[in-house]
């Protein structure tokens, strides 16, 4: 077997330039797919970490069943009261994999600077719990602060954060005073004084002129309730998301609570849309690479067969079976795929090292400041790429190789 591989390797270098170009095409294709794969991995990880950690949404959110569908029409019906909250806490306390539990109340109303009012949407959260979630962030998300100003505080109820668009609309800056107004759960109009502690970028462009960040106490006071509309849960690791969701749903139901548990990716529509978009881009890139690799290998093997027709006849005369001829050309194309993949790995590592060394920055969508641009090395992608390119090379070679194996021996021997 080794001898046949040796023969295949030597055959490969009979026409060095042609083999080199094929190896180069495979290598560049490999590097293109893996660099794009590394970039998308960086984007997906950043988006995921941004949603879970930076925005403080955690891995899981617990709602009253039906809140996401009907909650906007009848919010009070879907609020989790203090007794239910106590039961939820009991259930969550049984799970050591849960690092942080953060109740939230999302509110809406009008924000006024004394002269003009505009609509706001706000997440009311416990600032210390959100800070705990933020502190678990790793990588890029852990390095950047998504707001200017100072953090909100549990005990300073009036401190709020505004999205830059909202602040601009009301001509409010850091430390400016404002008034938030909203109907309470019983339908009375309520108003609270607020002071701008921080300005932040809205994670959704459409909400840039509407978003506020307030403490849970502020939100509950404005709505005049002790209830919340969701409980955010941060887990030890992302991998535990699905299993913990299932277990929590079962245990909460066992306590007689009519709740539903949603995972972070079910709630983050932006992440899902971006992922779908990059998956399509990745698919197109892969198809282009696929076409280049297949065409290059078919061309190389077809040319080799044409040039070596008499040799094929000789091998057949000496007793090589048809499948032996297919095997020989398959071995040659497998070597092309292997060498191309090795070159591709080197090119990918060079690209990755270059990016790590040069540390380029960029402004991604939804963020107004420059952040480091990274390309991850994803061993899984590389392994799959090697296997896929070798299989592709084999498949591409199989057609001309089978044609070569079916040649009449006498005709092949007489080929000039």
């Amino acid at each position, binding site marked *: 077997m080794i001898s046949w591989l040796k023969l295949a390797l*030597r055959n490969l270098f*009979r026409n060095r330039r042609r083999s080199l170009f094929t190896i180069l095409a495979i290598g560049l294709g490999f590097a293109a797919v893996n660099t794009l794969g590394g970039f998308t991995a960086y984007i997906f990880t950043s988006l995921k970490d941004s949603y879970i950690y930076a925005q403080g949404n955690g891995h899981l959110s617990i709602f009253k069943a039906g809140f996401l569908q009907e909650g906007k029409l009848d919010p009070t019906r879907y609020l989790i009261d203090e007794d239910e909250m106590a039961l939820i806490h009991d259930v969550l306390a049984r799970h050591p994999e849960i690092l942080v539990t953060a109740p939230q109340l999302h509110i809406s109303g009008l924000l006024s600077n004394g002269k003009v009012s505009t609509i706001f949407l706000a997440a009311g959260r416990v600032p210390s719990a959100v800070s705990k979630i933020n502190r678990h962030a790793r990588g890029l998300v852990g390095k950047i602060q998504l707001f200017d100003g100072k953090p909100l505080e549990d005990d300073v109820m009036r401190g709020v954060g505004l999205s830059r668009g909202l602040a601009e609309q009301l001509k409010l800056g850091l430390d400016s005073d404002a008034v938030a107004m909203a109907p309470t759960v019983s339908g009375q109009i309520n108003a609270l004084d607020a002071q701008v502690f921080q300005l932040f970028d809205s994670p959704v462009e459409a909400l840039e002129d509407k978003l506020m960040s307030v403490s849970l106490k502020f939100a509950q006071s404005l709505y005049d309730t002790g209830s919340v509309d969701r409980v955010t849960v941060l887990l030890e690791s992302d991998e535990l998301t699905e299993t913990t969701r299932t277990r929590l749903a079962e245990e909460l139901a066992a306590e007689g609570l009519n709740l539903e548990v949603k995972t972070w990716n079910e709630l983050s529509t932006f992440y899902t849309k971006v992922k779908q978009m990059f998956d399509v881009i990745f698919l197109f890139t892969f198809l282009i690479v696929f076409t280049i690799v297949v065409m290059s290998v078919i061309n190389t093997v077809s040319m080799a067969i044409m040039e070596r027709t008499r040799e094929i006849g000789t091998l057949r005369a*000496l*007793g090589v079976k*048809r499948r032996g001829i297919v095997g020989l050309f398959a071995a040659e194309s497998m070597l092309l795929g292997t060498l191309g993949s090795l070159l591709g790995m080197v090119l990918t590592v060079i690209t990755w090292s270059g990016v790590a060394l040069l540390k380029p920055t960029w402004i991604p969508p939804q963020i107004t400041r420059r952040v480091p641009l990274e390309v991850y090395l994803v061993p899984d992608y590389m392994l799959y790429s090697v296997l896929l390119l070798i299989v592709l090379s084999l498949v591409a070679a199989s057609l001309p190789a089978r044609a070569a194996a079916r040649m009449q021996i006498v005709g092949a021997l007489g080929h000039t």
Partner: protein
Amino acid sequence: MSRIGAPLLVELRQVGKIYHLGESRITALKGVNLSIQRGEFVAVWGPSGSGKSTLCNLIGLLDTCSSGTVHFEGQDVTALSDDQRSELRNRAIGFVFQSFNLIPVLSALENVMLPLQIAGVSAARAKRAARKRLAEVGLDDHAAHRPAKLSGGQQQRVAIARALVTDPALVIADEPTANLDSENALRITELMRRLNSDNGTTFVFSTHDQRLLDRVERQILMRDGEIIDDRSPEQSAMRLDRSVRL
């Protein structure tokens, strides 16, 4: 014409071969009957297009006949599958080609080892057998040379060593001296004759070369796809002598 008492190696019965070129049919062989015994040294000769290469291809199991049967070592090979024919060729038949047909990326030694490696013989055993055969053809000191570094005569000797390395019952040689100068042609002819007499290997070859024809014990003359004469050189000479006297 055959060796009396020697076992039959090849037998062709009413063998015909028709080639189809587009819509036209070319009859290359017409109802040929032929028997070759083990140990014979046979030349097939005749003008171009007479069918001698076709005959050699059928005897060497490189091609299949359109009609009739071909028996090799008593077995009807006409019905064998392609794989079975390949195995039989590898085990029992060696080939020497006009253009040597060595594999250019392999050394002389590796070329000679090739038929054994195709048969699945271990590299060590194949190497030992190949070295022995290379020594027989006087090229043991050229074992590491690639074909491009060898002269035409040397390449043909490597090809003969390759043809003999599996100890085949039959060697088919297609115009083995056609691409060689006189000196090398003579050397190759003598080598094949010696291997035939020393090892008892049967040789069947097509040729135009009179020097080769003078050294064979049996000549088969072909014309228009038929065997028109089958005799020993002595018989040929006697016949020629008679016609001169008449």
